[in-house]
């Protein structure tokens, strides 16, 4: 194991982990505040990637696709919450899970009907279509570095928002104790719309960012959904900081595992999750 190679793999792990954070932060907040297990979260990631594919294909610029995925995602999430999830608020968990499962099927069918079932690649923006040597003989594409930066920036914004603003503290309160929101006189309905819109926007932004890195194809969100749940469980349900550290941890373990112990790479993160569930069922980073 050479040092340069290890550094390159750590960078790969951080980049993957930060992308995971964008997806799982929404998932954890939606669960924390709304107590809904959103199985369709991976499909939202996929929709974001297809938005990038369609917009970048039509306009030739991925830069337009990023705000479109973010704003479109917020709007889409708000519509989903108002139109569907709100009606399921008082229902059992099973009904809610079935609703999100139905959404997966609907989104997949819609994708197949509107586009096709092919595998598509999305071009990296021309301005970032070059590589920078990072460690030793290994170079990083400028776009990959930009994704790293954008993810870090979004993560910082989220911390500021959740830790420093009134609305953010309401969300934290709701995530820790949903009943408290009503006691504090906060409009829970508005809060739910906001959280679901935010979570959807983040998942779709992550999808749009990932499109040039891993191509766009049917069911591309499935793997991300499962790994995001692992992040949420390890980080502690409803905890943004927990999701952040857990995502980085998973990103590193998965990447280093694939590089150095490929036989065990597939199971390493699930083993970690099983251990966390055994020893700290509320998550590594949850406040006790």
């Amino acid at each position, binding site marked *: 194991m050479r040092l340069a190679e290890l550094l390159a793999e750590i960078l790969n792990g951080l980049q993957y982990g930060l992308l995971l954070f964008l997806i799982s932060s929404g998932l954890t907040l939606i669960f924390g505040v709304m107590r809904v297990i959103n199985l369709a979260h991976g499909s939202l990631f996929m929709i974001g990637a297809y938005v990038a594919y369609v917009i970048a294909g039509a306009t030739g610029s991925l830069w337009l696709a990023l705000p479109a995925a973010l704003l479109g995602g917020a709007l889409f999430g708000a519509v989903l919450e108002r139109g569907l999830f709100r009606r399921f608020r008082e229902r059992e968990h099973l009904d809610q899970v079935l609703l999100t499962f139905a959404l997966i099927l609907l989104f997949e069918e819609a994708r197949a009907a509107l586009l096709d079932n092919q595998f598509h690649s999305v071009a990296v923006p021309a301005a970032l279509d070059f590589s920078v040597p990072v460690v030793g003989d*290994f170079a990083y594409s400028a776009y990959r570095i930009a994704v790293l930066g954008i993810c870090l920036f979004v993560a910082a914004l989220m911390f500021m928002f959740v830790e420093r603003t009134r609305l953010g503290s309401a969300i934290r309160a709701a995530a820790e104790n949903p009943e408290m929101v009503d006691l504090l006189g906060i409009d829970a309905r508005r809060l739910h719309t906001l959280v679901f819109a935010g979570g959807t926007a983040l998942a779709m932004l992550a999808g749009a960012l990932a499109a040039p890195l891993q191509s766009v194809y049917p069911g591309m969100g499935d793997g991300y959904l499962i790994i995001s749940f692992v992040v949420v469980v390890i980080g502690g349900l409803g905890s943004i900081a927990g999701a952040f550290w857990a995502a980085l941890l998973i990103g590193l373990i998965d990447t280093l595992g694939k590089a150095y112990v490929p036989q065990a790479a597939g199971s390493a993160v699930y083993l970690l999750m099983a251990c966390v569930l055994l020893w700290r069922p509320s998550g590594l980073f949850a406040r006790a």
Partner: protein
Amino acid sequence: MLHVSRRRLLGGAAALALGRPAFAQGAPLKVGLMLPFSGTYAALGENVAAAFELYLQERGGRLGGRTVTLVRLDDESDPAKAPQNVNRLLERDQVEVLVGTVHSGVVMALVQAARERNVLLIIPNAGNDAATRELCAPSIFRTSFTNWQPAYGMGKVLAAKGVKKAVWVTWDYAAGKESGEGFGDGLRAGGGELTQVLTLPFPETNFQPILAQLPGLGVEAVGSFFAGGSAVQFVKDYAASGLKEKLPLCGSGFLTEGVLKAQGAAAEGLQTALHYGDGLDNPKNIVFRAAFQQKTGRAADVYAVHGYDACQLLAIGLDASKGDARAIKPMAAAMEAAKIDSPRGAFSLSPSHNPVQTIYLREARGGENRVIGIAAEALADPGTGCKMG
């Protein structure tokens, strides 16, 4: 029960007298085309089918004296549905010959049916070694390749260039592993060595953890098997990681087949090995490409060649048995002895019923896989473990 027509009764009696299953001379011969017409491999299935039809048209729609009816069935590249789909063709549609398919998991159901029921099967694409190795049978033929073949050619070329150590990068599934074995055998044949096979789960496209390892492995070249959209991503990521100049990438021809436009500059100069390529100027290929273009409005590719040759091979068999698709013995004898005039160049079949064919060395240039030489002349799959009969 009593509605048996006189003609049918006579036909039945005649068949009994000959001791053979019934087939009426005048009745059309049903050929089942089980191919992917939707999903990731739809374009491949369409080209196989179109070229199959093209040769049938050239023969006036008749093979072995019988009019041929094609029964198309979309297998969706879904191995779970494969046994049921094969049954539908054989039971409901009563086809007498099976032609299919692209996906190497789905083809196993066809192989099983062909072995159990002694039905003629011609495989126009799927390259899993087993179909013409340990699972070979007198009724199973292939007009495409084994996964081993193109990769063997690539390994041989590298070793001839003086490469001593190389690695193979692929997905952890049959086609990837089998082509890796071919690559290793090819390298060894020329004095080189395959030091490692790096895999990731199918169909994952996060290649970064593998790419970062490559500079430290002490090898002189990297070979790989990926296909379709993932091949686009891999070739682009490889170029973006700055490895292309220092550590040449090469592979089975599928790495750049049909995806060069999407790979763009990242693929330029990349060498691959396959039994077909752009710029083959044999007369058969020129005529075939023009006819295929005219029929479909698309350019012919290696998949179209497989389909065209599948129909050519079937014609040889049926001509020998005078249209009796159940008479495996005379058909197989004729097909085994035949030289098929393929657009890829004439080929014959190995004892295990797989093409003995030239593997070309190609280089990606300006959106084409130009043939720049020969990687392996008249290459036969070893056919290890094949026991006919």
